[in-house]
C-alpha cells in the first residue's frame, strides 16, 4: 500500500507522520539536529522504516507523497544567521527600515536599546527616482546612482541585493531596469525585487519582506538542494512538497523564489489538521485549533471551512505585510515560569524554562516552578509515565519549587499554590482564544475546538468550558498536529494585484481584467504543478475599506466577474456586513474603496480515505484501566481517580470524568463535568456539560488573600 510521509522540524523533536491510504497513522519522533537538520529527518525516517520492517530505500519507494516543514528560516532570522543583504531604495527614504512605522508597545518603557534595522544603514543605498501613487514616473531613474551602489555592494561583499522602491507595485519599471543594470554590472549577483515579493502598498512592510526574502535566499537554496540530494540517495526521486505560511504546500522551485513564505509554516499547517478532523468527526466547518508547546500556545481558526488569513504578520519584531495563516502565539506553555510580583499577584511567564533546564521536576537544574510542575503536583501527570515513560519526573522537586515560588509568597498550601498556577495559566490561554474569536466578532460557542500538543489535554476542558464551547477533538496525532496537516494539505499559492477603485466610480472593465489575469496566472501555476483541472480550485477575495480608513478588511468574493450593478451592490453589502460584524460599526451611506484583488489557487491532492473502525461497547475493557491515583479537582478536592491506558481504549468506549487517560503522546484530564469518547477514527471526542452558568468557576471556599494588602 502506498504511504504518505510528512516531516516537521521542531525545536526539540523532528516529527514524522506516516499514513497509508486508509488513514492508518504512525507517529515517530527523532531528536532535532540543529547543526544539520537533514540528519534528524533521516534518523526519523530510519525509525519509521524499521517500524514497517523495511530498509530505508524500500520504505521510501512505497512513498508517493512526501512533504516537509522546517523552522530553519525562522531560526535563521531569530539568530541573525542570514545572508548579507544590500538594499536599494528611493532617494530620500533610506530609513524606512529604521522607522518601521513607529509605535512602541509600552508608554513608559525607555530603558531599552533601539531595535536595529533589518539591513544596516551602511548597506542601504538610495537612488534618484520617483513614481507617484498612480504609477506615473515623476523623477526618472538615475542609472549612475544604481551602478555606483552596485559597485559598493560588490566592494562590501554583499551576498544578495534587495530592491524596494516607493510605489514599485504601481509601476515596476524602475525595479525592472535596476535588475537589468545589476546583470550588466555584476552578472553573478543575486537580487530580489519588491514588486515581485510583495506587491502591496505600505513601503515598510514591502521593504522589510523583500529584505527578509533576500536574506533567506542563499540559505534556502542550499538547504533544499541538500535535502533533495539526501532524498535522492534513499530512492525518493520526486520533488518533496514544502509547507508554506499560507497553510498549504508548495514546490521547491517556488520556495526558492519566495523563502519568505516558509516562515512560521509549521504552525500554519495545524489548522489544516484541525479543519480535517472537525469535518471528519462532526462535519463542522467552524474550528479553533490550539497547539500547545513547551513555552508557546498557537491558535488559529477556520470559519465556514476557510482558514483565517491575516496580513499583519510579525516575525522577530518586524511587521511584514504578507498574507499568511492567522496564527496567534502567546508565551504560555508547560515550561512557563510562575512567580509572584511585588503586589502579591500571581504571574505566569513570559519567561520559560525551555527544555534545558526545564521544569523543576525534570531535575536538570530548574529551580523555579512551572506549569508542568503544577500539573504533576495536582496529579494530572504520572511521574513514571511522562512522554509514554521516556522520562521520569521528580514530584518532590516540583513541590519544593512551587512552595518557594508561589506557596510561601502568597501564604498558600501546596495544592492551593499548584492550583493557582494551573488556573492562571489556563486563563491566559482562554484569553488568547477570546482574542482570535470575540475580537473578530466571532462567537466561539459556534466552534469546535481541536487540540494539539502533548499537554493540551490537561488544559482543554477548563478552557472550552469557560468559553462555552461544547465539542473538543483531541486527535490521535495530537502531538504532531502540524505534520499531520502536511499529509492532508493541498498545493496552494496566492496571487494578488493592487488596483484601486470604489463603489461610486467602479471600473468594471479594469476589475474584470484584473480578476481574469489573476485567474490565468493561478491556472498556469496549477497546470505547471501537474494538477488536473478537475482538482483546481480558485478562491477570489478583495481587500477594502471605507474612505480614509487605513486598515483594510479582506473578504471573499462570490464572483470572479462583475457583470452588472447588482453584482457590485451585493459585494458592497457584504463589505458593510463584514465591517459591522468585525468592527462594530456600519456606515451604509458611505461608498467602499477596493485596494487589492486576490486569488488563492488550490491544487487538491487525492484525499486520504480514512476507514472507520467498528464501534464497540461504551464501557472500556478492564484491561484499559490502570491503577487509581490521587488527583485534585476543584469542588471535589483530592480524590482517588481512575486512570486509563489510552492505547487500550477502543472506538465507542466512553470515559466519564473525573478520570485521566494516558496515551503514548498525549495525556487527557477528563474533568468531573466532562466525558471522552473514543471515535470510530480513534480520536478523542470530549463533551462538556452545557449547564455551566450557575457554576462557580473559582475555588473561593478556602482561597487565601493577597499578601497583606
Amino acid at each position, binding site marked *: 500500500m502506498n504511504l504518505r510521509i510528512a516531516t516537521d522540524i521542531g525545536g526539540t523533536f523532528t516529527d514524522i507522520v506516516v499514513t497509508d491510504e486508509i488513514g492508518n497513522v504512525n507517529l515517530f519522533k527523532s531528536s532535532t539536529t540543529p547543526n544539520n537538520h537533514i540528519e534528524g529527518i533521516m534518523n526519523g525516517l530510519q525509525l519509521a522504516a524499521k517500524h514497517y520492517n523495511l530498509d530505508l530505500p524500500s520504505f521510501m519507494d512505497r512513498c508517493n507523497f512526501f512533504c516537509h516543514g522546517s523552522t530553519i528560516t525562522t531560526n535563521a532570522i531569530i539568530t541573525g544567521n542570514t545572508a548579507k543583504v544590500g538594499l536599494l531604495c528611493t532617494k530620500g527614504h533610506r530609513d524606512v527600515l529604521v522607522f518601521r512605522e513607529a509605535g512602541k508597545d509600552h508608554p513608559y518603557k525607555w530603558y531599552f536599546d533601539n531595535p536595529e534595522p533589518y539591513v544596516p544603514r551602511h548597506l542601504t543605498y538610495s537612488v534618484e527616482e520617483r513614481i507617484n501613487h498612480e504609477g506615473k514616473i515623476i523623477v526618472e531613474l538615475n542609472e549612475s546612482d544604481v551602478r555606483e551602489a552596485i559597485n559598493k555592494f560588490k566592494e562590501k561583499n554583499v551576498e544578495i541585493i534587495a530592491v524596494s522602491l516607493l510605489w514599485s507595485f504601481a509601476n515596476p519599471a524602475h525595479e525592472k531596469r535596476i535588475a537589468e543594470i545589476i546583470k550588466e554590472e555584476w552578472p553573478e549577483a543575486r537580487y530580489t525585487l519588491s514588486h515581485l515579493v510583495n506587491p502591496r502598498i505600505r513601503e515598510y512592510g514591502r521593504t522589510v519582506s523583500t529584505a527578509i526574502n533576500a536574506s533567506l535566499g542563499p540559505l534556502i537554496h542550499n538547504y533544499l538542494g541538500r535535502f533533495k540530494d539526501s532524498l535522492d540517495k534513499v530512492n525518493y526521486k520526486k520533488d518533496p512538497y514544502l509547507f508554506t505560511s499560507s497553510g498549504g504546500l508548495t514546490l521547491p522551485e517556488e520556495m526558492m523564489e519566495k523563502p519568505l513564505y516558509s516562515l512560521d509554516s509549521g504552525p500554519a499547517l495545524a489548522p489544516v489538521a484541525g479543519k480535517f478532523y472537525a469535518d471528519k468527526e462532526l462535519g463542522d466547518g467552524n474550528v479553533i485549533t490550539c497547539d500547545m508547546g513547551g513555552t508557546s500556545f498557537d491558535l488559529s481558526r477556520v470559519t465556514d471551512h476557510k482558514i483565517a488569513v491575516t496580513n499583519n504578520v510579525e516575525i522577530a519584531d518586524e511587521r511584514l505585510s504578507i498574507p499568511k495563516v492567522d496564527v496567534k502565539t502567546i508565551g504560555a506553555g508547560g515550561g512557563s515560569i510562575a512567580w509572584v510580583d511585588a503586589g502579591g499577584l500571581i504571574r505566569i511567564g513570559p519567561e520559560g524554562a525551555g527544555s534545558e533546564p526545564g521544569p523543576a521536576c525534570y531535575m536538570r537544574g530548574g529551580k523555579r516552578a512551572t506549569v508542568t510542575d503544577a500539573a504533576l503536583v495536582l496529579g494530572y501527570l504520572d511521574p513514571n509515565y511522562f512522554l509514554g515513560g521516556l522520562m521520569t519526573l521528580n514530584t518532590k522537586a516540583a513541590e519544593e519549587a512551587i512552595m518557594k515560588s508561589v506557596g510561601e509568597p502568597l501564604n498558600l498550601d501546596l495544592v492551593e499554590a499548584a492550583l493557582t498556577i494551573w488556573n492562571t495559566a489556563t486563563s491566559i490561554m482562554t484569553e488568547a482564544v477570546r482574542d482570535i474569536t470575540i475580537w473578530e466578532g466571532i462567537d466561539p460557542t459556534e466552534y469546535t475546538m481541536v487540540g494539539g500538543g502533548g499537554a493540551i489535554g490537561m488544559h482543554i476542558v477548563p478552557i472550552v468550558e469557560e468559553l462555552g464551547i461544547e465539542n473538543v477533538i483531541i486527535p490521535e496525532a495530537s502531538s504532531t498536529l502540524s505534520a499531520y496537516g502536511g499529509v492532508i494539505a493541498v498545493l496552494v499559492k496566492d496571487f494578488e494585484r493592487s488596483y484601486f477603485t470604489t463603489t461610486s466610480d467602479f471600473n468594471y472593465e479594469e476589475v474584470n481584467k484584473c480578476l481574469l489575469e489573476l485567474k490565468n496566472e493561478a491556472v498556469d501555476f496549477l497546470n505547471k504543478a501537474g494538477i488536473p483541472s478537475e482538482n483546481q480550485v480558485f478562491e477570489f477575495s478583495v481587500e477594502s475599506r471605507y474612505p480614509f480608513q487605513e486598515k483594510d478588511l479582506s473578504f471573499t468574493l462570490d464572483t470572479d466577474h462583475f457583470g452588472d450593478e447588482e453584482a457590485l451592490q451585493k459585494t458592497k453589502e457584504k463589505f458593510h456586513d463584514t465591517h459591522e460584524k468585525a*468592527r462594530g460599526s456600519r456606515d451604509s451611506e458611505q461608498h467602499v474603496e477596493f485596494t487589492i484583488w486576490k486569488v488563492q489557487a488550490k491544487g487538491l491532492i487525492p484525499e486520504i480515505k480514512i476507514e472507520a473502525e467498528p464501534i464497540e461497547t461504551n464501557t472500556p475493557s478492564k484491561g484499559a484501566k490502570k491503577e487509581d491515583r490521587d488527583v485534585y479537582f476543584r469542588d471535589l478536592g483530592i480524590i482517588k481517580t481512575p486512570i486509563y491506558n489510552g492505547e487500550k481504549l477502543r472506538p465507542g468506549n466512553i470515559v466519564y470524568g473525573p478520570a485521566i487517560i494516558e496515551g503514548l503522546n498525549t495525556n487527557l484530564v477528563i474533568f468531573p463535568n466532562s466525558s471522552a469518547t473514543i471515535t470510530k477514527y480513534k480520536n478523542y471526542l470530549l463533551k462538556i456539560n452545557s449547564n455551566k452558568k450557575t457554576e462557580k468557576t473559582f475555588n473561593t471556599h478556602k482561597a487565601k488573600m493577597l499578601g497583606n494588602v
Partner: protein
Amino acid sequence: MDKTIISSEQLAIMSSRIAGIAKHMTYVLQSSARSSIMSGSRDFSTAVCDGIGDVISLPDGLPVHVTNMSVTTKSFIQYHGENFKEGDAYLNNSPYHGNTHTADYTICIPVFYEEELMFYCTIRGHQADVGNSIPTTYNYKARDIYEEGAPVFPCVKIQEDYKDIEDIIRMAKTRIRVSDVWYGDYLAMIGAARIGERELKKVIEKYGKETVKEFCGQWQEYGKKRMIEEIRKLPSGTWSNESVHDPIPDMVPEGIPVKVKVTIDSEEGQVIVDYTESGDPVPCGLNLCEATVIASGRSGFLNFLGMDLPLCEGALSQIKVKMREKGVVGKATLPYSSSVATTNVADRAVLAVQSALNGITEDKGMAEGALSHPAHTAVISGHDARYGRDFVTQLTNGHTGGMGVKGHDGYVKYHCSSGGMSGWSSIEQLEQKYPILYLEQELISDTGGAGEWDGAPATKAVITPTEDEITFIYLSDGKFNPPKGAEGGYNGTPSYAAIYNLDEGESSLQELPMFHQLKLKPKEALVSKISSGGGYGDPLKRDPEKVKEKVIEKWISNKKARDIYGVVLEMDPIEKQIYVNYDKTKELRKI
C-alpha cells in the same frame, strides 16, 4: 454576610479579562477609524473605569490621554450622576470640564447590570477636525475660547437607548470640516465602547456583581501596593527643575517657563509633583488644563521609573499633582484657550519632571526628548481634486529624537505625549489619501545630543503639494530652547522650518517662523527638522565601540567622533574596516 474574598488567582484572571476587554476596544477602534490621525497614528486611548469612575485598566493608552481618565469620567458623573441610563452615551471635549483639549473627544458609556451601574467604558480619540476658526486642532493663535472656535460639548448626552441624539450630531456636522470623516471616527469610538459594554456585562454575569465590585476594590489596592513598592526604592527629598517653552512672537515673547518641584516621600511611597510656581494663563492656545497637568506630572514620573506597573487609579493616585486653580500649568479657566493642552507646554511639563530626579539612584536618569509639532507634523487641509473631496488631517510622521537615558541611547521614534506609542502612516498611504508628496523623510546625522548615552537623532522631512494649494498650520517648539542634555550630556539640536521652490532648487530656501500658518502651492516644498534628544552622561565616557558603530552607520561623522567623544577611528587598509585606535583615543580623552 462575609466579605467576598478574592484570591490572587482570581485577581490575576479577572484583571487579565478586563484588560483584554480594554484591548479589544483598542483593536476595534484602530481597525475601524477613518482619519489617519486616529487609525494610522492611533491617537486615541481606551479605558475601563469602575463604578465610581476610577480607572481599572488602561491598556497601551497614550500617557497624556489616560493617566487622567478618572478625572474625566468623574466629570460625567458630576453632571449626570443619578440620571445615567442603560443605552446612554456621553461626549466631553471640554478642557474646562475634565477633558484634555477640544480636539480630544471623550466618549463615556455607563455599563449597567440588573439596573446597577457597574463600570464605565471611556474612550478618548483625537478628531482630525473639530471646527476651530482655522483648520487645525491645535489653535495656538487663539487668544481665548471664542477665537479658538471649536464647538464645546461639556459632558453632553449623545446617545439614548443606543441611538444617536440626532440634534447633537447635526450641530456638530454643521460646524466641523470634512464631517463625514468626523462622523466615521465618532462611530468607530461608539462602536468600540459598545463592544466594551457588551463584554463587561458578560464578566458581571459570570462572576456576579458582588465579586466584581470586590475585585475592583482589590485591584486598586494591588496597584497602589505595586506603586508604593517602587517609590520606596527611591530616597526621600525634594528636587526642582525647569523647562522653558520657546517664545512665540506677539503672544508669549519671553517663552513659557514650566517650574516644578518633585517631592518623594519614600516612607509613604508617595510622590508630589508641584507645578504651582509656574505662571499665569497666557493669551494664546497653549494653556494646560486639569487633565493634562495631572497627566504630565504622572507621566514624567512614570517615564523616570520606566517600570511595567498596573495602570489603574490605585497606582496612579500615589503620584499627586499640585497645580494652580488658574495658571498656564494649572486648571483651565474661561475665557483662556487650552486648544494645545496636550503637547507643547505639556511636553515641557513632562520633561521637567522626568529629568528632575537625575542622580538620585544608580540605575535611572534621563535627559529631555524632542519637542512637539515640528512643521512636518502640521495639520494640513484643502481640496483634493483627484477625488473631488475636501480633507483635513494631522501628519504625524517624522517625530524622532528620544532622550538619552541611563544605560541606553535614546529611542528613535520618540513622541512625548504619546509615550512613543503613536504610529506613523506609510508614506504611500498618505500620498494615496492626500495630495502630497514626501520628497524626503530621513534621519539627520550629527544631530543626537552627545552623551555617554546619546540622544536620538532628528528627522528631516521635505513635503510638497501635488495638485492644489494646501494649508499647513504648525507650532514647532524647540528652536530656542532645544532639549536639554543631562549629567554632562550635550543638548539636542534645534528645530527648523523653511520653504523652497522645487524648480529653483535649495538656493531659494527661505526660513519660516516656528509657529505659522501658510499655504503651499505645487512646486513649493516645506523643509522641516524636529529637535533631537539630549544626551545623558559625559560623551568622553561613551564606549568607543559604540561611537564606531554610529560612525559606520552614518549617524555621526568622524569629526564628531573625535571632537565630542574623543574617539580616534582609523581605517584598516587591508581589511578595509574602521577600527578604534585605543592609544590615540586614550590620549585625546585625557586632554
